[in-house]
């Protein structure tokens, strides 16, 4: 193909290490262009990777898990637990007598652990001062881009049971 032809019939090293200084400008630009195009290929590969993950990711299975008894958590108190796997830290909050809410403890910004601030009745991330609503898990302030994933709870007698996670969409 005409477009792919070599610049000359000289060996490659003579093409790339030219004797004339003026030719060097061409070599530099050509090599820089090649680097940029390879970077572009890397970006495209990144998009394809996300697409593959999106296509082949399995629907997560959420087992039912007994968290604690209602009397274990005082009003204004918290209970830390792990759900759905042992790697996923979550926080259960009891803001008033009859309300129990639970969220993933990982901040959606850079995965720092959020904590409950009872005085302001909100979840706070200490790393970059991201604040989340207790009622919905929405971002109130700060850099977190998404709400906290919510753990859906069911009250069975005196027991609090985690049923599934809800990844809340922004906007």
């Amino acid at each position, binding site marked *: 193909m005409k*477009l792919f032809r070599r610049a000359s019939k000289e060996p490659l090293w003579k093409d790339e290490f030219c004797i004339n200084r003026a030719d060097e400008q*061409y070599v530099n630009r050509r090599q820089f262009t*090649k680097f940029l*195009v390879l970077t572009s290929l890397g970006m*495209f590969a*990144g*998009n394809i990777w*996300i*697409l593959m993950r999106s296509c082949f990711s399995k629907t997560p299975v959420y087992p039912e898990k007994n968290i604690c008894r209602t009397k274990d958590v005082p009003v204004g108190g918290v209970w830390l637990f792990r759900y759905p796997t042992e790697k996923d830290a979550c926080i259960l909050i009891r803001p008033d007598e009859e309300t129990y809410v639970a969220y993933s403890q990982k901040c959606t910004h850079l995965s720092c652990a959020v904590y409950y601030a009872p005085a302001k009745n909100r979840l706070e991330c200490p790393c970059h001062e991201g604040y989340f609503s207790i009622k919905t898990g929405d971002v109130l302030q700060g850099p977190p881009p998404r709400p906290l994933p919510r753990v859906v709870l069911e009250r069975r007698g005196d027991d609090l049971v985690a049923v599934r996670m809800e990844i809340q969409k922004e906007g």
Partner: protein
Amino acid sequence: MEPQHQPTRKHGLTAIDGALALIVILLIVQMWLLTATLESYLAGHHEVVLPAAIVSGALFLICAALYLFVIHIDAEERKAQRENSGFRETQDRL
């Protein structure tokens, strides 16, 4: 016989610089697209992933086409230079 028109060295460099500038702009757009796609994917908006991959592929193809254009210009310049130097050598011998 009329001499064939050959792009001058300066014109060739200008063309390559133009192509380079375009590639840089496209690359910045592609970077933004990748970060925005990842952000949307993590936020649970899976519907944007396929169009983003298609657009990213198109941007890569444009970059590759511009790279081929740069190689082409480079080859033309070298060819012109070789022919000119051959012509001068013949004149010197005469």
